[in-house]
């Protein structure tokens, strides 16, 4: 029961992954692509969640957490970059 359900949800997630990838590649404006990459990261976490259920292996949550952390910092970096052209500014009073 669990196995079949997790396979179905994996397929669904894979499809949504394809949509995001499409948006990442075509994406008219730059922020679209940034958001696309961010969502790919988040979908990634759900894939890992379902996958660990399927395999009954709780070890993958570390990578899931790391993806969450780091896709966030990626998005923030890209955001700042889009606005200011450089991410690290020296000093703002």
């Amino acid at each position, binding site marked *: *029961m*669990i196995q079949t*359900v*997790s396979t*179905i*949800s*994996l397929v*669904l*997630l894979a*499809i*949504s*992954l394809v*949509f*995001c990838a*499409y*948006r990442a590649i075509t994406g008219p*404006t*730059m*922020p*679209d692509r*940034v*958001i*696309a990459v*961010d*969502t790919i990261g*988040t*979908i990634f*976490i*759900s894939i890992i*969640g*379902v996958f*660990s*259920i399927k395999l*009954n292996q*709780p070890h993958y*949550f*570390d990578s*899931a*957490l790391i993806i*969450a*952390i780091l*896709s*966030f910092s990626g*998005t*923030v970096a*890209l*955001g*700042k970059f*889009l*606005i*200011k052209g450089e991410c690290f500014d020296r000093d703002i009073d």
Partner: protein
Amino acid sequence: MIEILISILILVGSLFVLVSSIGFLRFRDIYSRMHAVTKATTAGVCLTLMASLLYFSSHGNGINGKTVVIILFLFITAPVGAHVISKAAYFTGVPLCRESVVDEFKEHIKKP
């Protein structure tokens, strides 16, 4: 009983994610796309993680705290990420789509 609950959670979660990516695909401008994506995907992912939390608490060796941490972390970071990106989009002059009606942010904006 737990099995059914977990499978329902997984299915609903992945459906949420699917719906959000469809929305991501179909909406016309960046701002509405962001609505769809950030909110729905985060909800979907949290549901799936809840499912895995339940699954491992019943099958595996007790509740592993990581899933809770992930859910917490996602709740914190998703909106902030979206906020930064929308600000970036707005300041780089991404136009609102034709149908959008009002833009309050324009008045009290000062160019960075």
